[in-house]
């Protein structure tokens, strides 16, 4: 389809507007993170810091237990991602390969769970975890994150399983491989990219999560990064904006890096070659 030059110009203008809208808050965050206090207090803030400094980062680490919080976040996110994928993969396999009441019920739960208001869930969860002595503990939070990330993990993984051609499994069976053998040596390798992508997605979700962490973690030495970050907010003078921006910037980097990674993984197209070869 040919598009007129005028329309093309309009399209590029619109695309540029989108790019600016998407990018400018993040650029501003970076700008503030590297600005010395004097420039932050200036009446005419500039985009590019005139005297860039790392002082804000140092101050952020001095003010709040960022390392501890980062470690807590890492444990919670890794634990949630690994466990979620381990238990979701077999169930997703069943959901993709069998039609039955169980599959229907599981699919129903996946859909309905998107509509749960967390308030209705968090109060009983809080009471249950309190009775188990798992309030204010990272393992307790991991349990919550596992269940919380299961719906989309099941959804994604079931999609990946469906993309593995049944014929491959049947061919393996014809060649005399048992069902377990087929799963381990035929299906699993083909699923691997999907499993990794799902785990990374679960990792990001848990790393970013705030509400459950806010309710369940009470003391600063147990809290995750998002909760610690909110301690910077409040009666902030202009002078405290720098450390706030610096800490927020650091907390975002893992999510952005991991997410960039999955984008490539998803487009890896390992399956496209599987049937051909």
């Amino acid at each position, binding site marked *: 389809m040919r598009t007129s030059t005028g329309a093309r110009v309009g399209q590029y203008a619109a695309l540029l507007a989108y790019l600016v809208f998407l990018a400018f808050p993040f650029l501003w*965050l970076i700008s503030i993170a590297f600005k010395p206090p004097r420039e932050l207090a200036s009446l005419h803030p500039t985009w590019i810091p005139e005297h860039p400094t790392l002082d804000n980062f140092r101050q952020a680490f001095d003010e709040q237990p960022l390392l501890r919080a980062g470690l807590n976040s890492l444990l919670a996110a890794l634990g949630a991602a690994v466990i979620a994928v381990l238990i979701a993969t077999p*169930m997703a396999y069943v959901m993709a390969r069998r039609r039955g009441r169980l599959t229907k019920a599981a699919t129903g739960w996946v859909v309905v769970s998107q*509509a749960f208001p967390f308030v209705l869930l968090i*109060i009983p969860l809080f009471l*249950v975890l309190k009775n188990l002595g798992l309030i204010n503990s990272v393992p307790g939070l991991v349990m919550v994150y596992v269940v919380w990330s299961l719906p989309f993990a099941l959804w994604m993984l079931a999609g990946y399983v469906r993309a593995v051609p049944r014929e491959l499994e049947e061919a393996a069976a014809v060649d005399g491989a048992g069902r377990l053998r087929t799963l381990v040596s035929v299906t699993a390798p083909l699923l691997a990219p999907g499993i990794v992508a799902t785990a990374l997605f679960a990792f990001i979700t848990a790393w970013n999560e705030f509400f459950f962490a806010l309710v369940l973690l009470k003391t600063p030495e147990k809290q995750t990064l*998002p909760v610690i970050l909110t301690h910077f907010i409040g009666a902030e003078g202009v002078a405290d904006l720098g450390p706030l921006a610096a800490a927020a910037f650091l907390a975002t980097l893992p999510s952005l890096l991991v997410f960039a990674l999955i984008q490539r993984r998803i487009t890896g197209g390992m399956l496209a070659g599987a049937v051909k070869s």
Partner: protein
Amino acid sequence: MTLVTESRRPARSAPGPDRPRGGPDHSAWFLVLPALIPILVLSVGPLLYGILLAFTDAQSGRTEPTEWIGALNFRDLLHDTLFWESFRIGLVWAVGVTVPQFLLALGLALLLNQNLRLRWAARALAIIPWAMPEVVVGIMWRLVYNPDAGILNETLRDLGLGNGHDWLSGLGTALPAVVVVGVWAGMPQTTVALLAGLQNTPRELHEAAAVDGAGAWRRFRTVTWPALRPVALAITALNLIWNFNSFALVYVLTNGGPGGRTRLPMLFAYEEAFRYGQFGYAAAMGCVMVAVISILLAVFLVGRLRGGTKGGDEA
């Protein structure tokens, strides 16, 4: 839950993923149990427990036993004007975020579906709002809106459009300001969903329509939209739910202020439960939120679907 007892398999034997001779049903159960048990214990169970709590006077840190009080919480809730005001704000927020989110995302998806340069840049930048922790999104926009050091006021001053404004503390500007952040944060996800839908639209049909002399708008209405419609409905319905239930963004941006102007129902219920310890009452709020949202959603979907068949007949 009866299903679990029927299978009579303890959870411990679950990890053996697939036995060669287990019979089709048993092996399925082995595969399913490791996920099913956490789902039942930490999701379905608590949800039912939460609904029951709504009919009790449960409070945090109380020594006397919790009592069954019937529908008293709901009767109180009916007269709780603060809650309904918060509910109204929640609906304004949810619709106010979802509609622009959809329109902007549709625009971006249509652009990305064209053969433009710089597409990679948009795809790369779309990661930022999507992957970022909501708390950081809130902090970032606080820096943008900051009355003194914020870029928004600085830009307005540069353009000679007044002396700036305290956006997040102004009674009139707080809600629109947080709505903009909500739109920004949810746009990429919607864009990706719509883009996937667009790439499923039949290209030949598009070309045929163009050959027949149909203009861009007509092509969009008769070819693109019918194909995109199911995706658009699904993502809009999900966005409505997610936005109505959102918490972290507004908690960080305004914490419900100024004067409750941005106090979304989730914030209200959170405070009721974990600041004032009124577990039963907060659970009742949660029930009301689910009920109203389910009804609204049902009305929306039924209306849209019916409109869809009519539209289809016309075309």
